[in-house]
């Protein structure tokens, strides 16, 4: 028994070595292996919006303030504060426009992405004890941008209103100090406290998921592809006529694919921390442990697919069909909580969901093993069950 185990392992290692030598001699394949994570990270990291993504947004400003009694103090104060905030954040690039229609035309032409209009009665309203209304012009064809700009400008205006109100309170009653004045204007102050210190971006959310996905997918797709390719070329027969345990073919190939996947995973990790400032809060060993566990939970599925796919083409097609729903339903790109309930239910049966979740907890929240026992249990159980199904199925398929 012990002897057989040893032979199984050494034969598996030989097969893994052979696969890796082939991989590293395939120049183009190797380039793709490195480029894939780079593209993936670059795409997700730069394209998806993050909190501070509003940078140098070109905005038109139409100041139509007619003044009140010869004074335009309302719009002057507003502009002064706006400019001061903008100098600090560099959020907007303001150009002047004549009126609302001119702004709308510029948006249609694509010259500016939105606009601010100060109506003619702005100072009049403020000085006569009414609210001054500001108009934000948005580009409806770009809802994402429009919402982001609307949100940001509203926040800025809100902040300006508060400052103005604070000053007004002091003006009414000079005995009140600035802090108390602020408390009168805005009694509630909201403070956001993350589980770990420092701000986190969308990227912190997505990086662990992408790592889990890349490693697990590369094993799940790599395994059937590699075996069905050898079946087609005929080299699989060379291994099949050797007096070795059939399992060593699967184990060896899995080892090689895992090494390939981990290589990509590490690349993603390096890119994420160098380019996007993602840091690992928890233990790095636990991160790799989780990746390996994720691989284990996926191997069975890969082996079952290998046994069913007659040729490489079929294998790839089955893979693609399975991969896409998994990518989007596992909460790698979008939080599972955003999905409708039935989608959430599907997401709960996908192992990738748990791997990505656990990895996120460890990497972003600095969780240890006690905090991720549920995920660990699910992954282990899934892996054991799938492997239990896969081994007899594979053995049967190989001697058809």
């Amino acid at each position, binding site marked *: 028994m012990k002897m057989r185990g040893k032979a199984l392992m050494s034969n598996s290692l030989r097969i893994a070595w052979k696969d890796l030598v*082939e991989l590293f*001699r395939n120049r183009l394949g190797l380039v793709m292996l490195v480029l894939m994570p780079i593209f993936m990270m670059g795409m997700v990291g730069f394209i998806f919006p993050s909190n501070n993504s509003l940078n140098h947004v070109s905005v038109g400003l139409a100041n139509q303030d007619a003044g009140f009694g010869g004074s335009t103090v309302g719009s002057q104060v507003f502009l002064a504060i706006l400019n001061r905030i903008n100098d600090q954040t560099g959020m907007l690039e303001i150009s002047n426009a004549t009126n609302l229609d001119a702004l709308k035309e510029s948006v249609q032409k694509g010259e500016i992405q939105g606009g601010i209009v100060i109506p003619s009665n702005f100072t009049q309203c403020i000085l006569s004890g009414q609210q001054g209304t500001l108009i934000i012009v948005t580009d409806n064809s770009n809802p994402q941008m429009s919402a982001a700009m609307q949100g940001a400008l509203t926040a800025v205006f809100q902040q300006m209103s508060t400052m103005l109100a604070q000053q007004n309170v002091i003006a009414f009653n000079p005995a009140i100090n600035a802090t108390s004045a602020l408390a009168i204007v805005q009694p509630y102050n909201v403070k956001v406290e993350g589980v770990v210190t420092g701000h986190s971006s969308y990227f912190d959310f997505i990086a662990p998921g992408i790592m889990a996905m890349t490693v697990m997918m590369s094993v799940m797709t790599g395994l059937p592809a590699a075996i069905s390719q050898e079946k087609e070329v005929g080299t699989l027969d060379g291994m099949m*006529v050797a007096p070795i345990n059939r399992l060593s073919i699967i184990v060896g190939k899995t080892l090689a694919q895992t090494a390939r996947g981990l290589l990509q995973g590490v690349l993603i990790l390096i890119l994420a921390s160098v380019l996007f400032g993602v840091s690992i809060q928890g233990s790095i060993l636990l991160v790799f442990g989780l990746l390996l566990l994720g691989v284990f939970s996926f191997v069975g599925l890969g082996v079952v697919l290998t046994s069913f796919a007659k040729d490489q083409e079929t294998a790839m097609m089955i893979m693609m069909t399975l991969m896409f729903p998994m990518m989007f339903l596992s909460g790698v790109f979008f939080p599972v909580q955003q999905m409708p309930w039935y989608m959430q239910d599907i997401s709960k049966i996908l192992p990738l969901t748990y791997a990505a979740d656990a990895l996120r907890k460890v990497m972003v929240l600095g969780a240890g093993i006690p905090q991720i026992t549920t995920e660990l249990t699910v992954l282990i159980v899934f892996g054991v069950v799938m492997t239990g199904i896969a081994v007899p199925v594979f053995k049967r398929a190989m001697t058809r």
Partner: protein
Amino acid sequence: MDNESIIVVRNLTKAFGDFVAVDNIAFDMKKGEIFGLLGPNGAGKSTVIRMLSTLTRPTKGTATIGGFDIVKQDNEVRKLIGIVSEKMIMYNRLTARENLWFFGSLFGMQKEELNGRIDELLELVQLAKWEKAQVGTFSTGMKQKMNIIRALLNMPQVLFLDEPTLGLDPQSTVEIREFIRKLNREHDTTILITTHMMGEADLLCDRIGIIDHGKIVALDTSANLKNAIAGANTTILTLEIANLTPDLLTTVRALKCVETVSQENSSHMKIHAHGDGAFDSIIDAIRAKKANVVSIQNIQPTLEDVFLHITGREVRDTADQKIPLAEHRRFGGGFGGASRGRGQ
């Protein structure tokens, strides 16, 4: 009898769904024998080899190699055999030595033993100086040599060769043939070979089995097979006719005693006929058509004639090109007579 047979095949059957690829075959092979399996495409040759080399499980029946059952003691069988299939079992991105090392190590050979064996084999086929080159850069002939020495790593007592010279140039073909014979002579290796080249089978094989529709339809030495059809009152003629017309071919073909007529070139035709007086009736028919006979040759039957006589088909028509396995499977059954299942 059985105690000196290294391969014993009994009632071996393989079915893929409804299609019976190998139908209840039985034969024995003696140690040191070269046995040729001939048959048209799809006859079941490759399936026989795949079953005997433990790559495919038989549906029914048994076979033993060196006394070991091919199903129950498959790993024992694997230690005794080597297989050269029509596909190259070789990784293009590995060097010659790495390839041999990989496959050899799977047989559990020790480092020194394996290294020595690899040196010896590379030397044997004059590839030693290419040992560090990737196999992908090799010519087809070189690859096939590699393919064969790969099968010899474990010093097999039984070697299965599935179309070992398919697609090779004449020089490589001769080299490979010589090598096979040498192997048999010097190491007493038992060899089961499938080929569509009748000349090759005639030259190499001690005995020949003709397989058609999954059944062995004839099994004997080459000489006996030829004598059998000569004794069956068969006449084989080659006629050279100055004014050979399609009309003449049709006339001859219509004769009762004539089995097949084939036009060899613009002036030659070959006729297979049987029965007493066949010769006379053919000549009479040709004379009646006022054909101008230049020469007549009454030829000795070749293995090809035997094949034609037994299967009613020319081996060349069917076996020059193999239809890839995957294609067979995909259209399995739907092709009617054109493609009769998969493999050979």
